[in-house]
């Protein structure tokens, strides 16, 4: 990365010019086999996410939103329906390094430094790259997530937020088209969580990647996403899709925007209703 920060481009407004579909789920259902008894954890999921969009998937814990993310990552197969990433199967897309994943736990390797942790997934994914090149890319992305100077530190010497930054740098080092983030800030304290949200927006606006963010925090979803898909339980399906009217770029002022409060209230109302429906 050059020392001068690139100018932030406003995100494409999806309503005006619909972006080509990047992630799609058609009639997807997932059954879990619980010792002879099958339980349907996802049903009738239809989802289209345009290229370069930042989309949030919200819902109560255990509603299957992580399962949906795992489907897009190619980590499991749907029992019915079709999942596509960039027009191909998720497994194929993953093989071509089009998908970067980060989870709630940073899942760093304790025996590697921050730099080696950021490098390690690309190293695994593409053994043909030279070590120097992998490290250079990892270093660039560590700087991008604000960890210049921490390259040589081990995970035990990093704070929770810094570890999560390494995890995001590790995903970015693959240079994927799609970022799948499964509650990446869920284990962080409130202030760090907001910082990381701003960082994610910044990265998204610079790199124009398609981002699918799974979260159960309303404010996080409203602050970050252009589209919010709300999931309900029993069995899980998408009960509503909200297109955010908050403009980008967003910053600390966004929290005080009346539209922010309205969106958050709408989300809360939907989730409370779906929660009551389930119990």
């Amino acid at each position, binding site marked *: 990365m050059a020392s001068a920060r690139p100018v932030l481009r406003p995100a494409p407004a999806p309503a005006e010019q619909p972006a080509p579909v990047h992630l799609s789920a058609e009639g997807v259902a997932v059954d879990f086999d619980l010792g002879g008894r099958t339980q349907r954890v996802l049903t009738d999921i239809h989802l289209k996410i345009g290229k370069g969009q930042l989309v949030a998937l919200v819902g109560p814990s255990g509603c299957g939103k992580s399962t949906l993310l795992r489907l897009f990552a190619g980590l499991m197969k749907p029992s019915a329906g079709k999942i596509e990433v960039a027009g191909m199967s998720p497994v194929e897309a993953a*093989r071509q390094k089009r998908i970067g994943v980060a989870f709630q*736990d940073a899942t760093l*390797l304790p*025996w590697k430094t921050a730099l080696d942790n950021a490098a390690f997934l690309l190293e*695994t*994914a593409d053994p043909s790259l030279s070590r120097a090149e992998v490290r250079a890319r990892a270093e660039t992305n560590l700087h991008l997530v604000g960890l210049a100077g921490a390259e040589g530190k081990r995970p035990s010497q990093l704070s929770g937020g810094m570890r999560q930054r390494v995890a995001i740098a590790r995903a970015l080092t693959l240079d994927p088209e799609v970022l799948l983030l499964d509650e990446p800030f869920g284990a962080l304290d409130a202030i760090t969580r907001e910082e990381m949200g701003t960082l994610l927006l910044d990265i998204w606006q610079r790199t124009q990647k398609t981002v699918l963010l799974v979260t159960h925090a309303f404010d996080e979803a409203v602050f970050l996403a252009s589209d919010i898909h709300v999931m309900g339980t029993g069995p899980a399906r998408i009960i509503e899709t909200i297109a955010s009217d908050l403009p980008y770029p967003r910053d600390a002022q966004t929290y005080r925007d009346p539209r922010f409060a309205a969106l958050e209230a709408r989300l809360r109302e939907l989730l409370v209703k779906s929660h009551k429906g389930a119990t």
Partner: protein
Amino acid sequence: MITQALPTPRISRALIDITPAILLGLVCLVLWEAAIWLFKVEPYVLPAPSAIALVMIEQFPVLAVAALVTAEEILIGFILSAVTGIAVAVIIARFETFGRALYPLIVLFQNVPKVALAPIFILWFGYDLAPKVLLIVVIAFFPVAIGMLSGLQSVDPSLVSLMRSVGAGPGTILKRVRLPHALPQLMAGLKVAVTLSVIGALVGEFAGASAGLGYLIQFASTQLETALVFAAILFVSVLGLVFYYVVEMAEQYLIPWAPKFADANNR
């Protein structure tokens, strides 16, 4: 910073910590010596510490040669136990179906009193190195296998997902994630194994040998040279301690990322 300022106080603190133990040990030795003298205990029943020290000096060449023989058995036996234990764990972890067949058999075998196998090994392999090494391996491979296996299997599932998300297969995940992750638990298993290796060597020599500290202990006790028995026991203990510390040093070298006790205290 802090770590650089620490060594001197840490060493002096360690000395202060250990001083009471040394003093108590000396008091015990003096009481022992006095009791022998006071109650006129026969030396073949319980020799005085001074008599043991004297035998150690007089018989040093004999003891040293015996210690070398035993040390060789322990070293080879321990290394083979480590190799066997690691191999068993990797096979069980990597080949699931075969592992499901192998694991119960190994647990079953662990419940055979392995010491009882010593005479059979002597019968099969004679009085030399081989039966002792074999006995050590059957006694000491188990903690290595169990430690390694639980290390291999306790990897965070998210980490495995992450590896799979870039198309890594089970072999790559084993090599790049599971094996390094298992090192701390492997080292714990190795520390147990090294102690068991010493016991295995002694039992092997008791069952049938013509050299070694175990042989010396048995031979000297039939001759009622109890002081020599004690001297040999002391040598065995020191041998075990040396091996243990070699393993512990290897641990610090191999897994420097493991949080150190001192670091944890300084947080």
